[in-house]
């Protein structure tokens, strides 16, 4: 359980700092620190177990059928990373409190930082490939947000996008690689994968798997040629750089190499790919770092170079090299984080990061200078500092390699050369910044020491560099042993952490690197000139953006090709696709069209009804341009549909269809008032023929489907509903009981949809201005006599009667045809009749009701009825009913379902009235605006 809390605390705790910011910036920082500390506390118990020698596992079932469970595991390697992530995270939180300016939103910063921390812990502790990938992507996303933290700056936005594009693409490759790996092993658990190393290496899919996984690791760890996003990510605030781009996120790539080392290493492709890329990155970045003028740029390239070194160590593929790799992960994290923090302090106090301006800071900030110089010496590999130890192990390993045969001297030579450059750029960091004359035109002058607490994290890290460098056996040895054991998945070879091994070849290489580096730096002016002349700036960023632009252009071209803005074309393509999808299997599959069920004989009346319906539908099409007539034809279809419901035992449907028909036709007529009443003849005969063909195809398909259905045997689950309607729902009208009881939740959803549609329509009608025609299509002016007297008088008498009918339909709905939907429609029809016969003004003077509250009340009553069953410890929407006896009235039944039905009733009335009354009001508003003109 503790393992889960270690991850969940920062992930969920990410919400707190943005909330705590209202109590001040320190409160926000303290919240973040407290959450990190709590995670560290939860990690303590697992850590002690791991240090005692047993890896800790935890498992929660999620989708065991799909092999998707939550698996966490802490072994030595995971323990190392948990310590790095939480320890350095804590220091970064303290540092950032003083680094961020007053105007920077600190709550957001700490929230994102915690989110990232949780994701990173997830990577370290996952024991499932896909789960690891989820956290992997989460680190990409949160780092995107952190890099673009100053989102008002375009370089931050671009740098963030570039980082996301590169690491995100790598993440996709990694997903594919993980899927292949899981396929090979038959399990996605990492422990299983580690045990299956021989199986994986012998598998024909080994090479693609390796390539894809390496693509993921290399993009994340900024290996050549994917390195260029890291320098541009330096647009992030320096605490982010110190945390993500030195200690943690970029280490995720090498973590993956270490994690899967037992499963993937030990082959030629591994040696050449990992070793080769590592070596290229090491050399290229070490060289480039020297020529950066930006303080953080230098550190960024040096980070890339050191990551290359670690990659190369894993690529060398000997147990000792792997130990050295793990060791260098630890050392690099400590000295590089402190260097970034020192660079941030310098930036903070001088206002610039340009090393051509920053000179001679020793005089102004000796304390910071001392710390930075120690850390930079560790980066250079100066004895008595931690960087020296791992670098010497690295040199020693390059010497033992014989895989390259006669060319074996290349690797030690290249390593020494990289060492020379590392010393040179470290020397530049020290000399250029702290000595080398006086500062030039600093934006902030004179610089001075930063706040006390800003230096504490640097001091702690530098002390660690020293302690590990001088007393390795008493400090880092147990952790290194444990982590290396986990990486090797077996016994750790004997190695010595001593500072002095005698005058050996690796020591000689260190000496060459030190002297050579200082010599190189002393010649820097000539070197810079040479560099500028020989290597004109290749701007990887420009190339990247050109590539991105190409992709965007291609995407736009594709969109343009598919979307020409013609809705007719979309509809036709969609229908054609549907037709093809249904027709192809029917044509090819040999499915018999008809079934064994014989057809029933037809009576004359039914045949007549069918003929009328077909004729009316065809006339709707024929008269479609004479729109008023087309509406009349359409209403005939609707009427015959309701007759069909009567014919085949569906009285509820017939009532519903009939009343909906009335409101639909009223709606269409109202709309027609604002639309041209004659449609233009614009489709060519060819187009009409094509459309007709398509329509006939779709229609014929539906007809055949219906025929196929009719002639096949009929099976239903309806008996359950019919049998339990009375006993379970307390009603005899099964349709209504299904609506308000068995499937009440569906109905609740449906009336909610209706309510939303009505609100949407209300919004669409808001501020709508439409031309009102003065005459009808035939040029005759509309009658000024708006409201015919006879109709007005008759409807006034009819209103109470109609309302009474709707009450009757409502009350009996549970046991006989009727119910909330039908009663609501009947009420709406009765009210609309008043609007139509007597006008909006007249009606509204007498009927001062807003329809929004009615809709709201309806949905709320229905929902509250459902929620009411919770009071009785029953599931949502459980209905209850009972029979009561009233004197005079006699026996009657009350059911909670009736209350639910009341909600339905109110919603339907409100929706229909809201739509039609507001559409009707449009005539008034437009008349008013016309007169105002």
């Amino acid at each position, binding site marked *: 359980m503790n393992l889960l809390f270690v991850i969940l605390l920062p992930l969920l705790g990410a919400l707190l700092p943005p909330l705590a910011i209202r109590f001040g910036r320190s409160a926000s920082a303290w919240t973040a620190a407290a959450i990190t500390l709590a995670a560290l506390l939860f990690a303590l118990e697992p850590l002690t177990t791991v240090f005692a020698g047993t890896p800790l596992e935890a498992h929660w079932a999620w989708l065991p059928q799909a092999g998707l469970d939550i698996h966490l595991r802490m072994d030595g390697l995971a323990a190392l990373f948990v310590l790095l992530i939480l320890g350095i995270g804590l220091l970064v939180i303290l540092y950032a409190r003083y680094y961020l300016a007053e105007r920077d939103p600190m709550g957001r910063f700490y929230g994102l930082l915690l989110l990232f921390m949780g994701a990173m812990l997830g990577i370290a502790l996952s024991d499932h490939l896909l789960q690891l990938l989820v956290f992997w992507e989460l680190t990409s996303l949160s780092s995107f947000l952190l890099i673009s933290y100053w989102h008002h700056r375009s370089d931050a936005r671009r740098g963030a996008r570039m980082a996301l594009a590169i690491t995100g693409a790598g993440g996709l490759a990694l997903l594919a690689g993980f899927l292949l790996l899981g396929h090979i092993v038959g399990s996605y658990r990492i422990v299983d994968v580690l045990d299956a190393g021989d199986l994986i290496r012998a598998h024909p899919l080994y090479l693609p798997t390796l390539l894809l996984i390496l693509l993921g690791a290399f993009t994340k760890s900024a290996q050549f040629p994917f390195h260029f996003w890291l320098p541009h990510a330096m647009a992030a605030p320096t605490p982010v750089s110190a945390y993500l781009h030195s200690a943690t996120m970029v280490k995720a790539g090498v973590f993956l190499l270490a994690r899967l080392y037992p499963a993937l290493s030990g082959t030629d492709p591994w040696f050449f790919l990992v070793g080769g890329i590592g070596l290229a990155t090491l050399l290229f970045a070490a060289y480039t770092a020297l020529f950066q003028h930006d303080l953080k740029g230098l550190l960024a390239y040096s980070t890339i170079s050191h990551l290359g070194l670690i990659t190369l160590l894993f690529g060398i593929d000997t147990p000792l090299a792997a130990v050295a790799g793990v060791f260098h992960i630890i050392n690099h994290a400590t000295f590089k984080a402190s260097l970034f923090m020192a660079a941030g302090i310098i930036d903070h106090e001088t206002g610039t990061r340009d090393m051509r301006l920053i000179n001679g800071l020793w005089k102004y900030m000796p304390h910071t200078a001392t710390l930075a110089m120690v850390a930079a010496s560790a980066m250079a590999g100066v004895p008595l500092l931690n960087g020296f130890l791992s670098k010497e192990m690295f040199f020693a390993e390059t010497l033992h390699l014989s895989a390259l045969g006669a060319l074996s001297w290349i690797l030690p030579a290249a390593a020494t050369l990289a060492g020379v450059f590392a010393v040179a750029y470290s020397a530049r960091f020290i000399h250029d910044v702290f000595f080398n004359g006086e500062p030039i035109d600093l934006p902030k002058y004179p610089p001075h020491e930063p706040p006390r607490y800003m230096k504490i994290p640097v001091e702690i890290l530098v002390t660690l560099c020293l302690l590990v460098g001088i007393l390795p056996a008493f400090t880092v040895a147990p952790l290194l042993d444990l982590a290396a054991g986990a990486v090797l998945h077996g016994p750790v070879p004997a190695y010595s952490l001593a500072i002095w091994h005698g005058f050996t070849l690796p020591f000689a290489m260190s000496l060459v690197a030190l002297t050579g580096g200082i010599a190189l730096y002393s010649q820097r002016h000539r070197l810079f000139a040479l560099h500028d002349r020989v290597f004109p700036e290749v701007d990887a960023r420009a190339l990247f953006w050109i590539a991105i632009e190409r992709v965007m252009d291609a995407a736009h071209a594709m969109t343009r090709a598919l979307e020409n*803005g013609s*809705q007719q074309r979309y*509809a036709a393509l969609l229908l054609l696709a549907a037709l093809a999808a249904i027709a192809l299997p029917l044509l090819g599959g040999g499915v018999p069209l008809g079934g064994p069920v014989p057809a*029933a004989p*037809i009576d004359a009346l039914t045949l007549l009804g*069918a003929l009328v*319906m*077909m004729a009316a*539908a065809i006339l*709707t*099409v024929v008269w*479609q341009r004479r729109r008023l007539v*087309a509406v009349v034809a*359409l209403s005939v*279809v609707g009427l015959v*549909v309701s007759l*069909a419901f009567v014919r*085949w*035992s*569906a009285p509820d449907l017939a009532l*519903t269809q009939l009343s909906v028909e009335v*409101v639909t036709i009223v*709606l*269409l007529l109202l*709309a027609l008032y604002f*639309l*041209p009443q004659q449609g*233009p003849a*614009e*489709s060519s005969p060819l187009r009409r023929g094509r459309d007709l063909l398509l*329509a006939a195809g*779709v*229609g*014929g398909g*539906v*007809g*055949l489907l*219906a*025929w196929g*259905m*009719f002639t096949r045997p009929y099976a*239903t689950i*309806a008996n359950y509903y*019919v049998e339990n309607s009375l006993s379970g729902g307390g009603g005899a009208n*099964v*349709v209504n*009981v*299904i*609506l308000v009881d068995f*499937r009440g939740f569906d109905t609740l959803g*449906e009336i909610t949809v209706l309510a939303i*549609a*009505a609100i949407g*329509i209300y919004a*669409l009608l808001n501020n*709508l201005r*439409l031309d009102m025609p003065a005459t009808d299509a035939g040029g005759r002016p509309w009658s000024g006599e708006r409201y015919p007297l006879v109709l007005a008088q008759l409807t006034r008498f009819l209103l109470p009667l109609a309302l009474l009918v709707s009450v009757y339909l409502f009350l009996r709905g549970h*046991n006989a045809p009727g119910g909330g*939907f039908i009663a609501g429609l009947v009420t709406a029809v009765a009210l609309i009749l008043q609007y139509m016969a007597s006008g909006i003004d007249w009606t509204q003077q007498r009927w001062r009701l807003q329809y929004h509250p009615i809709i709201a009340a309806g949905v709320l009553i229905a929902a509250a009825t459902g929620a009411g069953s919770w009071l009785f410890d029953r599931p949502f929407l459980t209905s209850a009913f009972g029979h009561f006896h009233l004197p005079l009235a006699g026996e009657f039944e009350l059911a909670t379902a009736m209350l639910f039905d009341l909600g339905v009733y109110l919603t339907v009335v409100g*929706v229909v009235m809201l739509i039609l009354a507001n559409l009707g009001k449009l005539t008034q508003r437009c008349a008013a605006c016309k007169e105002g003109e």
Partner: protein
Amino acid sequence: MMEAVAALTLAVLVTCGVYLVLRARTFPVVLGLSLLSYAVNLFLFFTGRLVTGAPPLAGGSAPVADPIPQALVLTAIVIGFGMTAFVVILALRARGELGSDHVDGREEER
């Protein structure tokens, strides 16, 4: 025979509906959608088969028509009205904003 006629009616309704949906002006499209929703409702209703004179009322001993498609179609009819209303108002709004009742909001270039 009855079933064949019912299937044929559906075919004609769908054909007319689809043809109208493919027109270039909003109003015929609305008419077409209405025809299509009639057809769809009928089709769903027909999945309970053509049962005569036996409305789904519980309590009797005789078999009754299938209530499930009926319950489904009942709400479908009401929702269908909501959808038609929405499309109609959308068409009005489009005409108000764009000054045309063409489905693409602009007259076709010729």
